[in-house]
């Protein structure tokens, strides 16, 4: 059950801290799995397993370059995360804009009293 959810849901996929670290490393550009594994202090099969999950939720893409396989970010998968946080954040940012304006009015009114 849990495994199935991890590989089909981007939110579950990025709940794993090491997968988030892989994504951060890939922001700098394409990397082969052995480099990623070394940098994160994990085994190569361990890194490959995380990359497989990230590929399944379309957060990373891979391509063959000679004997190596290079991984890079695939922003398509991040869209639901971005949309989710933006919707909620925008709602509250706009509320806080209005709160700010209202509190300034209150402040002026109190000064006059």
């Amino acid at each position: 059950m849990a495994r199935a959810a991890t590989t089909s849901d981007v939110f579950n996929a990025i709940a794993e801290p090491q997968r988030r670290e892989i994504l951060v490393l890939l922001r700098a550009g394409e990397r082969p799995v052995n480099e990623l594994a070394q940098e994160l202090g994990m085994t190569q099969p361990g890194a490959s397993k995380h990359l497989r999950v990230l590929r399944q939720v379309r957060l990373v893409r891979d391509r063959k370059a000679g004997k190596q396989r290079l991984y890079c970010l695939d922003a398509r998968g991040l869209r639901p995360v971005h949309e989710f946080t933006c919707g909620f954040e925008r709602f509250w940012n706009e509320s806080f804009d209005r709160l700010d304006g209202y509190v300034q009015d209150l402040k002026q009114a109190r000064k006059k009293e």
Partner: protein
Amino acid sequence: MAVTGREAPEQSATADREIVISRVIDAPRELVFEAFTEVRHLSRWWGPEGFTTTTRAFEFRVDGVWDFVMHGPDGTDYQEWIFWTEIAPPERITLLHGESPGDPNAFESVLTFLPDGAATRIEMRTVFPTKKLRDEAVEKYHAIEGGQQTLGNLAVYVTAIVRKGVED
């Protein structure tokens, strides 16, 4: 598991389903806090631009409820139900946010008011306990943002009419 020292276990437990929004408001925190304590204040700023609220019941105390309807600019109504679980003036308010009493999908937000010189930093930390809950909040806030789109369209439409009137 190798311990690398860069892990903050407590934070990573909720980091992926938590949203923190903060803002600095140029006013003493007693005043910012006060804007949360009465309907006559809340109704002036709650929700994005173009939203209004109609309150059915309001009691600002621990275990008290704010039961209201939020009206979107496109005419859509949203049932809202807020339950205050902690009130510590002028530092902190913890609330449960749902659509009705006992809403199993209610989620918790903690509002913290911190002095920042002569100003106040307000921080809202919301943690969604389950995936299902988070998804439903996503859907709802998407719908609300849809309302915002409508408002934007209306503004464009009205501006066009006004300009046309001037040209005629």
